[in-house]
């Protein structure tokens, strides 16, 4: 099932239950999968047109009137383009607004470099009070949606909108502030987020065959990061690898290293190496940017060798 279909279905359920839940678009409802909700919820769906800054501040205004708005756009336009509106209208003013950025990083594929946010987590991670969440599969997304709605504050959700395979079981218990340990291990801590979790799990299987027992942890909430789990795992294994579809500056790698700043533990990164994106399909982009299972395996070995 496409992630955006799960997302739209959850929104519909939430809007059905409470008329104060509403959604604002900036002419990308079709891409976000919410276009069909306009007919069903005409008093809860608002298209602001191609004006993201206005959308963000309008959401802040609606929030002050007791509404719980979700705003959505492609990742770069939901973050870097409207960083000040998010910082001031939403976060500084303590407004309850959920921000959804679709097509993170290389997922923007054919829209290319202009639409590829390699920096969205970094941009918003430095805004005080912001919660940053990236679901790894449709199960986690469905569990997270009502939790995000119930959370009274600003959350940025980084949403891969196309199909992703289920990783979590249906009875999975979601905790917004607790990372998921998917596989325990003793040689290396592999911290991943978003659609890279699946790659990390595949890499861990290959590493196991080569005698490296990797622990795989899904850091679905990059801010505030679950320090306790990160530190405990890193201390246990003594080596760290982060895997993310984002610049290694400012994203998961930075967040994990900040958590481990007082630990003397070697850490390596698989992610976007401080470069812009480019046009292409996912298989090409994975190779071009270095987000491959093979690269995870090789970098994992490097991290272990640094122990």
């Amino acid at each position: 099932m496409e992630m955006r279909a799960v997302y739209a279905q959850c929104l519909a359920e939430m809007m059905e239950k409470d008329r104060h839940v509403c959604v604002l678009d900036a002419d990308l409802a079709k891409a976000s999968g919410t276009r069909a909700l306009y007919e069903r919820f005409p008093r809860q769906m608002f298209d602001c047109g191609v004006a993201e800054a206005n959308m963000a501040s309008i959401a802040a205004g609606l929030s002050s009137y007791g509404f719980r708005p979700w705003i959505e756009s492609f990742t770069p336009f939901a973050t870097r383009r409207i960083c000040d509106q998010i910082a001031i209208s939403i976060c500084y003013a303590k407004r309850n607004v959920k921000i959804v950025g679709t097509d993170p990083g290389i997922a923007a594929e054919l829209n290319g470099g202009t639409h590829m946010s390699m920096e969205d987590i970094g941009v918003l991670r430095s805004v005080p009070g912001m919660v940053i969440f990236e679901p790894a599969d449709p199960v986690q997304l469905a569990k997270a949606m009502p939790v995000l709605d119930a959370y009274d504050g600003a959350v940025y959700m980084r949403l891969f909108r196309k199909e992703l395979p289920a990783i979590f079981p249906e009875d999975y218990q979601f905790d917004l502030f607790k990372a998921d340990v998917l596989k325990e291990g003793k040689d290396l801590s592999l911290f991943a987020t978003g659609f890279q979790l699946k790659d990390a799990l595949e890499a861990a299987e290959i590493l196991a065959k080569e005698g490296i027992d990797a622990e795989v942890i899904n850091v679905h909430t990059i801010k505030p990061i679950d320090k306790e789990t990160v530190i405990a795992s890193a201390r246990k294994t003594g080596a760290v690898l982060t895997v993310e579809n984002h610049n290694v500056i400012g994203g998961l790698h930075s967040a994990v290293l900040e958590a481990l700043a007082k630990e003397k533990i070697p850490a390596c990164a698989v992610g976007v190496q401080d470069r812009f994106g480019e046009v292409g399909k996912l298989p090409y982009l994975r190779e071009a940017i270095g987000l491959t299972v093979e690269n995870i395996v090789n970098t994992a070995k490097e991290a272990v060798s640094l122990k």
Partner: protein
Amino acid sequence: MDKNLKEISRDIRCDTLKCIGHLGVGHIGGCLSVVELLAVLYFEAMNIDPADPKKPGRDRFICSKGHAGPAVYAALANRGYFDKSELLTLNQGGTNLPSHCDMNRTVGIDMTTGSLGQGFSCAVGVALGSKLEEDGATIFTLIGDGESQEGQIWEAGMFAAAKGLDNLIAFTDYNKLQIDNTVEKVNNIAPLAEKWAAFGWNVIEVEDGNDVDQVSAAVEHAKLGIGSGKPTMVILNTLKGCGVPWIVDLGPGNHNCNISEEQADAAIAELRKEA
């Protein structure tokens, strides 16, 4: 009310001077230019209750030019939202009265503003919220003329008209000055009335936005727009620094300038004498 709007305007102007003078520096020019509007809104036009500042369905005023905070605080204190003595804490560490309006700090402030352009969009969101709640509130908002150079103002203006938010009454403090020079020389926003009309708004022009009777009449007129399906823009031709000649004479320099306690007291004495 015991006092008339002219006397109330004088009190707000004096208290604004007092608190900025106590501090020694502040956004004096753009505070003094909007005093008459604040008097009309808080003492005549708005359905509000200082004893119940969060009353559901109340009218709201969102000061998008958030740097006029000190004048708004003076209006709130005069209206009874908090004690006037608190005005002297303006911009002191730990104060509830920061330079720019903050909804989480100040009783009676309904939106955090200061990053120009954003408060106007927030007001549009509030007007939309009121429409959805069908609570009959009128949402008043104030933007600056320099602020009108922000693209977000026009994004919000377009949206408010497209959604028929006729419960929104906006004001432009058209004092013709901004920090670097005159608005005309920096990046001219004229013809302003034509722009708002072209954006689908009712437009009312006030020849002297520092004449409280003219402002009062304009607000009454603007309220007739409720039900028209269009938001209303009231363009107030104002004088930046109005009420204190030497501040007016600073021109663009009065946007944020020094004023000693003695200077403030002298200006206040002069204003009281005129009365």
